[in-house]
């Protein structure tokens, strides 16, 4: 019974959202606000159930771990932002979070997202015995990376055989990248529509088997 109500509510809200394609209307705005409101409400309940209750409230009220008072009070300082006279206190938890986040994340970010990616472009252009498509791919990666970097080098005019030709190849490489991304974007948006149509025709109207 509850499933059926859920499916009807979801179907009506889906149609309300798609009604925007005709023109903006109050039904669309209601559905839009419901998405924001329910998502936030759900998240609050989840955080209470998964974190605050079992890992803070219960240990504190059962006297298991009084040290939790320190991070709890530190976290509560965030709320002081709403009171101008003591709002400065909220800077301490923010500073703590930023500091630890940077400290923990920076070396790993550099390693995983910068150094490993650079390393992946420093490869031999020709490897004896490698299949032709692999060799071609390697050449494209190396030259493509260099050409795209030349395009973004603004301290020299893009003229002459090195900077001129290099930046022209670079813009082509970038355009091909944009084209591929746009193609995937179209595919993604159509996929989302397919998902909703499958729901409406299948789960709601039972027209698909």
């Amino acid at each position, binding site marked *: 019974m509850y499933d059926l109500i859920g499916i009807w509510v979801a179907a009506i809200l889906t149609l309300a959202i798609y009604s925007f394609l005709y023109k903006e209307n109050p039904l669309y705005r209601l559905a839009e606000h419901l998405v924001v409101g329910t998502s936030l409400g759900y998240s609050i309940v989840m955080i209470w159930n998964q974190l605050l209750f079992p890992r803070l409230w219960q240990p504190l009220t059962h006297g298991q771990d009084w040290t939790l008072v320190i991070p709890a009070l530190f976290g509560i300082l965030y709320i002081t932002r709403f009171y101008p006279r003591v709002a400065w206190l909220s800077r301490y938890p923010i500073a703590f979070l930023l500091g630890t986040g940077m400290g*923990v994340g920076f070396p790993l970010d550099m390693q995983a997202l910068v150094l490993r990616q650079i390393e992946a472009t420093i490869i031999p252009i020709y490897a004896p015995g490698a299949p032709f498509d692999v060799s071609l791919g390697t050449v494209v990666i190396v030259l493509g990376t260099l050409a795209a970097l030349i395009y973004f080098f603004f301290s020299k005019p893009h003229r002459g055989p090195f900077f001129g030709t290099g930046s022209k190849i670079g813009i082509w490489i970038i355009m091909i990248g944009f084209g591929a991304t746009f193609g995937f974007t179209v595919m993604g948006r*159509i996929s989302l529509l397919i998902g909703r149509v499958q729901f409406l025709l299948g789960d709601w109207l039972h027209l698909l088997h």
Partner: protein
Amino acid sequence: MSAMNFWMKMLNIDRRWIFLAIAVVVIVPFFARMGLPLIPNREVRSIYDCIDSLGPRNALMIGWDFDPSTDAENQPMGIALLRHAFARHVPVFMTAYLPLGQGLANMALEQVSDTTVAGNFVIVPWDAWEPFRAQGAEGRDSLEAAWIAAGHRLPEGSRGWVFEGVDLAFLGYQPLFYLVILGMGNSIASQFPSDANGNPVAEMPIIQAHKNLRQVDLAVTLAGSSACVTWIVYGTAKVGLRVAFGVTAVMATDYYPYIQSGQIIGMMGGLRGAADYEVLETQGGYTSSTGRAYRGMDVQSLAHLAIILMVVLGNIAYFASGMRKKTALKAGR
């Protein structure tokens, strides 16, 4: 009406006609199944092969790192992965990067355990096999034998049992997930004292066999945002965790470099990626038929054809209507 006027009208067509055309193209093929062929790509096959090489002694972690806005693309991936892992008795940890992800993970479990559908699995909750645990039956084979000996029978068409705590740990959501991944490098139980259903994680046999991420063989993150990168930064770079991506099509091109650099073993991109995985599962004999993602591919192909046609028509209209000359004049060229 002159030809030029016709093309000018085409250029100024009310966009609602285009929406209607796309709606027709997306709805009609559902009633005329064409079954266009689909050849799984290399990036998806490498994930499939990796999971296919795992068994009861290994472990797989799947992250529901998306919210309902990308459910259509990411959820079929999760369902396909669960079916494959359960069929091979690979223990699965299920996590969620976002609060809404936990609900979606739960929905995926419900779909995989819907026994009205053939080929699904029966999930035995942690509490249900407590008496057997008390008798010391914690190994998977001995537990299943004891469970069947106690008179439990699989519903017709079901593929097997999934024992919560042995084959599955539904860990759920925790905030600041990058720190959670970092913490799981040392101990999974320390980050999830209880699972999403309130069961004690530390007591579960799955956690005693796989205490931290170093003892997990593969993590697949199903993401609709850059959350997936967190697994590389804090999992791969820190503890050498093998990672694969299941991302939305919009994100796919951003993450191909990570395959080339060897930081991820494979990637499912959008609905196509999920459909590829379903095809591989069917070819491998794990499912009798493909699922929702594959069914959507006929529609996807036709919708793409329609969009290509519109792009071509738009360009013809642009040149034939003399619009090119007008814009060139406006631009001072």
